[in-house]
């Protein structure tokens, strides 16, 4: 079920110079939503910006959801100006959630803004009693968002490009030596997803990745957000990130053209 909700802003919190968290009252979306799903956000009234913006739901809390986002353009700038008591139109929950059934020992890998949607995942995995290992990468220390929420769910390992927090380099540098995970989850830039998918495939671990794209509708009708995936007969076909995704089995995604 998809809902259109005029969500009340409960709190806007600036997490770093670039990152913000919006806590929103959205009872229908919060009740129906699952970790890994996203919402379309109408960032302003009027026709400019015209299209809604997709954001992964970072976490659920009662009748509310949180969106963690980075200032990248006009849409996110307008979102950052919202204050408690303002309203924001959301459409959701949309897309395929993470598959978590039966997972007992999980590895979560997040890069940049891709860290945000891992919070909801870590929370549900924790609820079902899974062991959780979390590897996070960002450009710099302030980019390592949601550390506290994630640390409350599992063991967190950090890496930054500039070495200002954790090890220096890419998140693939700190992927664990152990190989007995029954669920590997990755969200972040495409090269990171490709690297994690290759790492998991080599070790024969079930891996899911969450992709992102500019979207026209978020509902599955405009066909604007496709990515190439392997079909059952091995051929490359375009699937919608908003509908068949954003979470895909890593083995199906074609990362390189």
């Amino acid at each position, binding site marked *: 079920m998809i809902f259109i909700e005029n969500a009340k802003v409960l709190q806007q919190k600036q997490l770093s110079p670039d990152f913000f968290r919006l806590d929103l009252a959205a009872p229908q979306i919060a009740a129906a939503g699952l970790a890994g799903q996203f919402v379309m956000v109408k960032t302003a009234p009027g026709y400019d910006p*015209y299209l809604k913006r997709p954001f992964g739901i970072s976490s659920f809390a009662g009748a509310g959801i949180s969106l963690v986002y980075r200032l990248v353009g006009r849409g996110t700038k307008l979102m950052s100006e919202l204050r408690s008591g303002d309203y924001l139109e959301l*459409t959701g929950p949309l897309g395929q959630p993470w598959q978590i059934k039966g997972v007992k020992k999980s590895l979560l890998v997040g890069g940049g803004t891709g860290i945000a949607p891992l919070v909801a995942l870590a929370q549900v995995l924790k609820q079902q009693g899974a062991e959780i290992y979390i590897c996070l990468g960002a450009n710099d220390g302030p980019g390592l968002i949601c550390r506290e929420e994630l640390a409350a769910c599992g063991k967190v390992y950090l890496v930054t490009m500039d070495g200002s927090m954790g090890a220096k380099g890419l998140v693939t540098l700190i992927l664990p030596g152990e190989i007995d995970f029954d669920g590997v989850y990755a969200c972040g830039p495409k090269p990171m997803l490709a690297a994690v998918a290759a790492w998991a495939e080599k070790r024969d671990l079930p891996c899911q990745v969450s992709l992102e794209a*500019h979207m026209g509708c978020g509902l599955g*009708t*405009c066909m604007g957000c496709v990515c190439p995936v392997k079909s059952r007969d091995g051929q490359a076909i375009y699937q919608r990130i908003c509908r068949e995704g954003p979470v895909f089995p890593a083995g199906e995604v074609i990362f390189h053209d």
Partner: protein
Amino acid sequence: MTEMEVKLGQLTLKNPLLTASGTFGYGREFAQLYDLSLLGGVVVKGTTLEPRPGNPPPRIAETAAGMLNSVGLQNPGLGQVIDQELPWLAQFDTAIFVNIAGRKAAEYQEIAACLDKVESVRALEVNISCPNVEAGGLAFGTDPKAAAAITAAVRDATSKPVFVKLSPNVTDIVPIAQAVEAAGADGITLVNTFLGLAIDIKTRRPLMANIVAGLSGPAIKPLALRLVWQTARAVRIPVIGIGGIMSGQDALEFMLAGARAVQIGTANFYNPLAGPQIIREMAGWLENEGVRDINEIVGEAL
């Protein structure tokens, strides 16, 4: 209550609002948000004989008050549309139009002949205006002779009403509209998208994989309105107006310009509830103005 029923030749719609091809899928997503039976009609996405993969991404870009798309007719092919999608959509009390596209006249004809046997299909919309495919599409829609030839081929293959969807990317719309009318079209839908381009300032290259793309959204409304007005003055067959309609007022402007019905496309992305909202706004405005029957205002501005 103002009478909202409209007639497009032999075809009766409960109200003049249809959802446009390629912006509504097969209705499954929107059916989660409202009852599709509220709509005058649904135009099913551009359907080709064989499945089409569509163009490589990126396929869309936002523009001021609109968007560019270069999807390239991605669709599962006629067989799946007939077997899976149309039977599902047929549960709703709304007129199903199927938009059809091909690389040559024989393909259009074969699709039309297959759909002629599908009872739930009320009309065909012939796409000779897709700007995003290599063969066919726009090439047929910019030349009166080619447009007439495709129209005649489809006309021969079906007894269902045939609407031809025209491109705005022409010097003069009138000879093309008159050519498809003479070739046996029951009506004309216009406009498809305007050819546009987006450049990525970071890479200094065109943004879209397919380079050019079609512009839609409220940005194009005055351009579309002019073409609808010109066409409605030049042909006798019904015109369905489309291009940037976002509100009941926009829709009524197209009807005053001579459209007997309207389609909403990009508005479905901006506001998934746009369909029923625009119908309500149209009816409300007419009611306030004391208009008894919506057909009274059709073409008043011609």
